[in-house]
């Protein structure tokens, strides 16, 4: 058996952390795109679409992410599709983050005063024009800080994909622990790497909130 130096442990963890980063980015962008579609369904004119979007959010916010991962991993297999861990992980995280992002953004659109809708309607704007020129420019300003804040949840959510066998930072932590028998050091490092990924995001979310709020108040 070869000996592991502290540097060996850290190096292996950092190599695995790349996959945490990749999976986070894919899930966040994919979830964002799906979230936009859901958002337009939720605030749109069609009742069926509104109801669908509402229950979608209820379902994904009311069940554990871990269960969603299990269902994606084992459930799709039921239909004879062989799902690799990375695909199940990506899909589940995209669906999960779409639900949360949609709910965040809906709050931001709701925060725009009703008069803005009425004013733009009285100028003869159609629904898409109202959205494009009046509502979204204001809503996006409110939406940026909580959206950046949610990206922290996505990074932390990727840790669960280790349970269905996707090798990222947490899984690497377990593997390295099994090889070195130094759980204290290894999980300490794992926690620090997650912290290094997440802390800048949550700090910038706070800073953005302060900045954009000030701008908002000066209007």
């Amino acid at each position: 058996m070869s000996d592991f130096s502290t540097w060996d442990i850290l190096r292996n963890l950092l190599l695995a952390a790349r996959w945490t980063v990749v999976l986070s980015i894919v899930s966040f962008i994919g979830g964002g795109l799906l979230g936009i579609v859901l958002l337009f369904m939720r605030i749109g004119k069609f009742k069926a679409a509104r109801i669908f979007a509402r229950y979608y959010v209820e379902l994904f916010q009311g069940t554990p992410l871990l269960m969603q991962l299990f269902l994606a991993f084992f459930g799709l297999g039921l239909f004879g599709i062989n799902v690799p861990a990375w695909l199940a992980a990506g899909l589940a995280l995209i669906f999960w983050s779409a639900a949360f992002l949609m709910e965040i953004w809906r709050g931001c659109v709701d925060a725009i005063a009703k008069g803005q809708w009425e004013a733009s309607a009285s100028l003869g704007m159609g629904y898409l024009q109202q959205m494009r020129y009046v509502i979204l420019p204001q809503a996006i300003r409110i939406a940026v800080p909580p959206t950046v804040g949610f990206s922290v949840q996505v990074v932390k959510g990727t840790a669960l994909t280790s349970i269905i066998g996707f090798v990222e930072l947490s899984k690497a932590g377990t593997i390295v622990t099994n090889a070195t028998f130094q759980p204290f050091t290894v999980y300490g490092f794992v926690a620090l790497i997650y912290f290094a990924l997440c802390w800048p995001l949550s700090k910038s979310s706070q800073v953005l909130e302060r900045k954009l709020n000030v701008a908002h108040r000066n209007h």
Partner: protein
Amino acid sequence: MAYQFDFTDVILKGIAITVELTIVGGLVGVSLGILCAWARALGPKWVRPIVAAYLELIRNTPFMIQLFFIFFGLPSTGLHLNELVAANIAMVINLGAYSAEIIRAGIQATPRGQFEAGASLAMSPIQTFRHVILVPSLQRIWPALSSQVIIVMLGSAVVSQIAAEDLTFASNFIQSRTFRAFEAYFLTTLVYLLLAILLRAAMRGIGAIIFPRRRRA
């Protein structure tokens, strides 16, 4: 089929443990959160950075890693915990940090006059906090706090990974006995959904009891 499996006991035990974790985590965690929120917003100067470090560390690392650190990491310092104790501690520490930030927002939204009014009645800062500030602060952030408790309840699914026999553990157990993965996980997911809905109703009920006056629908 000539044989039949009965997993009612496993599932009921799983539900009981998930509920137990949520109740302990909720009560002790929110208490810890109130303490930390007080320390962070109004506490002595030297305590504030320590509490801030605790909050930032917990809020920026995954629950699963915290759990693994407590269960697998701490024994090498001589502190051995069984899986249920470790799960409970992790829940409390996690919810403590999140609820502290939420409650702090409620405290900071308190008008200055409330503090001054308390002081002018010769209340000590702690008395002012206890009798004047705390309840309206909690009322202000109760919806956010309820959501956080639900999120932590759903997050408790991870404790199955250290072999605490919660609901997810039960579904893994059934899956490994029957190879009926989809059925097992689908059923469990529905139970979680039901628990989440019940918990939201319970939090609303608790809110109605604690904040009887000026209750808004």
